[in-house]
């Protein structure tokens, strides 16, 4: 690696520990203005309060938002110099029919924008192997141009295509990583393989080139997010590149502070989640995004009843399944089915005294002063999860933004949805 590459890389990876917390905000170029990147300048203002080491942007946004990267306290800038349509799945406008990738700027262009590194994809596993060869040729070209420019090249090797299966995925990640390293990557942005053992193999495959794990998936809870980070750091990972989990959070700075605590300070996740000396705090501020409903995956449910217990405990301070605002149906050994509020609002519509309403946090709230405990809401609930217990109407309130049942479900049978 040349001197300029080394120096610029050291402004991304903190030389004190060799690790980095990077925020990806280049989604607009691949997916359009998804939530969180619509008003990117505003979002990044909040993101920067959380002191990321670097932010990944497209060339256009890098030019437009250059003021955010001025001064030595500012994060370093990473610029994506390629493009692909491959991430436009069925949920996006114009879903991809045929995958394309290609260059949109040169390393020299990125350098002129003030970049500390250029970021590119490398897809491995194309159905047409000629495509893979072309992609590798492109990455090799980037590598030599970057070396000449003194700009580090961060490659994002991704297993891709119909030949990728669940069983060969982690081995393919390791393979793709090694190909990227041999092609001249100075750092890597890599998807998580799902468990620390297989990720250790990925780290081995990188031959000492630093690996940042990418978000990509929607973390189910903050603990889940931090657990993945801690697992990768534990087996030799060098940090994270997180996008949606940060930019779509109601309080990106708080998420980043927690991530930094795990990556740079080596703090145990359980302490960070509990907010010990981190300042994350519990409640809505600690959530990754504001949930508006719960999604149920009955096939994952083990019938352990932790969700009903934690629901009654967190709301009433006692373990009483009858006081729970959700229930689990089914008999041992299963199948089981958690039944939760779907936020259908029939209870709100049924209430003549307007004791029920939708709060600013998105949950149904109950005002005891207006309520005469008539029970119409209980009758109106198609799932019978609205109950009257101890002279109170019990309706799922999504725990003011941080549902405890979701937090505690070890099987992810309950998931909070934005």
């Amino acid at each position: 690696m040349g001197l300029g590459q080394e120096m610029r890389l050291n402004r991304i990876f903190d030389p004190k520990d060799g690790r980095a917390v990077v925020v990806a905000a280049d989604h607009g170029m691949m997916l359009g203005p998804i939530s969180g990147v619509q008003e990117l300048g505003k979002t990044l203002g909040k993101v920067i309060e959380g002191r990321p080491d670097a932010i990944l942007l497209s060339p256009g946004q890098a030019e437009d938002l250059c003021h955010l990267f001025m001064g030595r306290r500012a994060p370093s800038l990473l610029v994506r110099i390629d493009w692909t349509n491959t991430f436009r799945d069925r949920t996006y406008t114009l879903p991809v029919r045929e995958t394309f990738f290609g260059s949109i700027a040169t390393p020299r262009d990125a350098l002129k924008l003030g970049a500390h590194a250029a970021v590119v994809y490398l897809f491995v596993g194309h159905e047409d192997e000629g495509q893979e060869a072309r992609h590798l040729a492109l990455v090799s070209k980037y590598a030599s141009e970057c070396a000449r420019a003194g700009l580090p090249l961060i490659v994002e090797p991704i297993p891709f295509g119909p030949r990728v299966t669940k069983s060969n995925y982690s081995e393919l990640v390791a393979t793709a990583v090694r190909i990227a390293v041999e092609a001249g990557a100075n750092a890597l942005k890599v998807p998580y393989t799902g468990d620390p053992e297989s990720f250790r193999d990925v780290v081995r495959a990188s031959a000492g080139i630093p690996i940042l794990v990418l978000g990509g998936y929607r973390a189910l809870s903050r603990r889940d997010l931090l657990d993945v980070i801690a697992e990768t750091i534990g087996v030799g990972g060098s940090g994270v590149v997180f996008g949606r989990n940060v930019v779509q959070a109601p309080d990106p700075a708080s998420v980043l502070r927690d991530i930094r605590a795990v990556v740079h300070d080596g703090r145990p996740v359980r302490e960070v989640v509990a907010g010990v000396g981190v300042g994350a705090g519990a409640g809505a501020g600690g959530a990754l995004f504001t949930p508006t409903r719960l999604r149920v995956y009955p096939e994952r449910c083990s019938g352990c009843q932790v969700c009903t217990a934690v629901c009654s405990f967190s709301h009433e301070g006692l373990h009483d399944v009858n006081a729970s605002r959700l229930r689990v149906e089914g008999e041992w050994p299963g199948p089981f089915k958690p039944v939760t509020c779907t936020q259908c609002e029939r209870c709100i519509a049924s209430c003549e005294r307007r004791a029920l309403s939708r709060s600013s946090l998105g949950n149904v709230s109950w005002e005891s002063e207006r309520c005469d405990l008539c029970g119409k809401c209980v009758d109106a609930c198609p799932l019978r999860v609205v109950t009257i217990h101890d002279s109170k109407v019990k309706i799922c309130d999504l725990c003011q933004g941080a549902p405890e049942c979701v937090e505690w479900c070890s099987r992810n049978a309950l998931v909070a949805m934005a």
Partner: protein
Amino acid sequence: MFDEALERIAGAGVDGIIMSRGLANRYSRIFRGRDSPAMIMGLDWTNAFRGGDHLLPMMRLEHLVLTSVEDALTLGASGVAAYFFVGYEKDEYEARNFESLAAICRECDDLEVPLLVQAIPVGERVVKGNYADSLALASRMAVEAGSDLVAIPYAGTEGEMKRVVTAAKVPALLLDLELRLAEGQPDLGLAQAAGQALDAGAAGIVLGRRYLESGNVTEAERLIRLVHGG
């Protein structure tokens, strides 16, 4: 020895350090991390600073560009620096210096690299009476060629300093020149000159060699506070 001095001055909180190509290679660790100073690569060479007590005192002012802006970028520089002198004995030399400066400016424009020009009146033709005017000429010429900021020696009085700084149009830094390049120039201490220069609108200071040599960073830290406040 030099290593330690460099590390100390970097730790004192300077915003940037001007390095030559060869040293940048050897001391890259000074510039590791976002807290560290920016590396500014000096592109050129001159014998102008070899005074009467030097082993080889300057007999004729020479100036030469050694490194391209592109090489500086490849080596990790955040900016580049070059000299521009006025007062050469032969006008041809000044013309050559300006030509090479202009070429650097164009390369900097092309690569979007900030350029610091150290504009210095020098030689027998520069005397106390024309020093400030020569300084104003040198710095303004550098700016017109495309310099993004200039570093200039003290102009003599606060009033003159203000005139030169204002005429420069771009941010101007006070250059800590130990050599009294014009006969009869007052030798203020740097702290006093810096105070006046900042009052006159200067944007900072370029600390000279003595702050590296002394090994004592207390004075440097005091000057850094003077510039940034606090």
